[in-house]
């Protein structure tokens, strides 16, 4: 069983404090606020939820900024180019497959012609 942290007193965090906190500190504050919410009374609950929701929004904004940076990684462009090249190769191979399929159809067609030819031949033999 995982060890639980001791419940903490409700935090008194103002909006101005939130702006100064780093990503890690915000995360720790959110964990403490959640622990406090579980045991909070009716009076404290709305304020704690408000702080939690503001922490959540702020952390989500960090995620959006991180995604922007991750998206600009030059490795991504390399992989996209390589995949595009491979796709072209596969299309060529698929065209070859269709050619083989056509060969089968043609063989069928030729056998049909031979059959017709022999039908005509039969009238004269």
């Amino acid at each position, binding site marked *: 069983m995982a060890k639980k942290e001791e419940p903490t007193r409700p935090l008194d965090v103002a909006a101005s404090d939130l702006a100064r906190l780093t990503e890690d500190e915000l995360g720790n504050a959110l964990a403490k606020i959640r622990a406090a919410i579980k045991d*909070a009374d009716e009076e404290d609950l709305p304020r704690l939820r408000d702080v939690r929701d503001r922490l959540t929004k702020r952390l989500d904004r960090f995620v959006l900024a991180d995604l922007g940076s991750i998206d600009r990684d030059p490795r991504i462009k390399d*992989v996209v180019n390589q995949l595009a090249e491979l796709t072209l190769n596969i299309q060529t191979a698929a065209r070859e497959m269709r050619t083989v399929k056509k060969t089968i159809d043609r*063989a069928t067609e030729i056998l049909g012609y031979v059959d017709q030819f022999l039908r005509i031949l039969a009238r004269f033999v």
Partner: protein
Amino acid sequence: MLRRLRVEMICVAAAALVAGCAPSIYKQEVLDFKQSSDKAVEAFDGLRTDTKTLELLEASVGKQKIDTTGACGDIVEKQLQRDAGCLAAWARYRAAPGGQPGPPPTCVEPTGFYVLPLGQERDACHLGVVTTNASGGSSVDPLQLPSSILLSETSAIGAKLRDYAATLNELATSTDGEALQSAVGKANAAMESLADRIQRTAKTDLKLEAMGPVSDLIGASLVSALEYRRYEAMKRIVDRADPVVTQAAQILSRASVVLLIPRLRAASNVVNDAIAEVNRASENQFVARLGKARAAVDDYLGLYAADPGASFQAMAIAHQKLKQALGDARRGFEALKTATADFAEKAEAAYKVFAKPKEKANG
């Protein structure tokens, strides 16, 4: 003339004959398996719903505080968010213009696949009764809410079994092989007609029985030729593609986990609120609120278990097994089957949770 024609036919057939054969797939058996799986799981789900109702009534005896057994949801802030920042810092470092990126980030960049540790979070997210020990400390005992753990595990197994069977059936009913067989079937029919015509026309010693194997041989050879060429092309492409597919899957795996963070955090807040509601419930409210808390935990874990990062890892593994099977079909086929099924399962789970309704409708 006819003897010469016969010899030529045999030569054509022999020239077309190459190694390899089209694998036959047990279509009917797979369809039966899927339909039976659907029925069995639906029956199980009906039984499970009844059991859950009973269990909630049991839990309502005595008003007790509940909580999760561990720090359910904390992984988002304590690990995922931190790793997202680190991935971003390294990406910025590599993207710096002019080849002068400055000092590298001090954090260790997550490499390879980023797969959420499901077992660890499941352990932390079990709901249980809060008990206080002699020294004033508290712990959460999930055994006092007995069947909730078992039911969440088993219901997931049922759903996944159904998904697996459905995917298997789709594989077995691929139309490509049928089109080929149909073309060969036509060739065979034409050959038999031709043999019949030769016999009646020329009144020679050429027997219909003798033509049968020749037409079969040509048909089989044409199938083999196509399958062999398909095999060669696939082997060549898959060999080249494998490292690229792996790298692409790793990137998508890491990015998708970062994308998932806000959704996990929101779901975790819902669990947080639901637990607070249970702990402030009157005796009459307790059962209903506990049910909501359970549903909230299920939603959170459902989101977590649908981890798209894991499905991208399964994609890379399935592709790697395909490459191995193409290299040596005798040793690689079973592993390919397993890996493909695993990929289908994980991709479907992620699709169900994350794909937009419009995309689903378009198929």
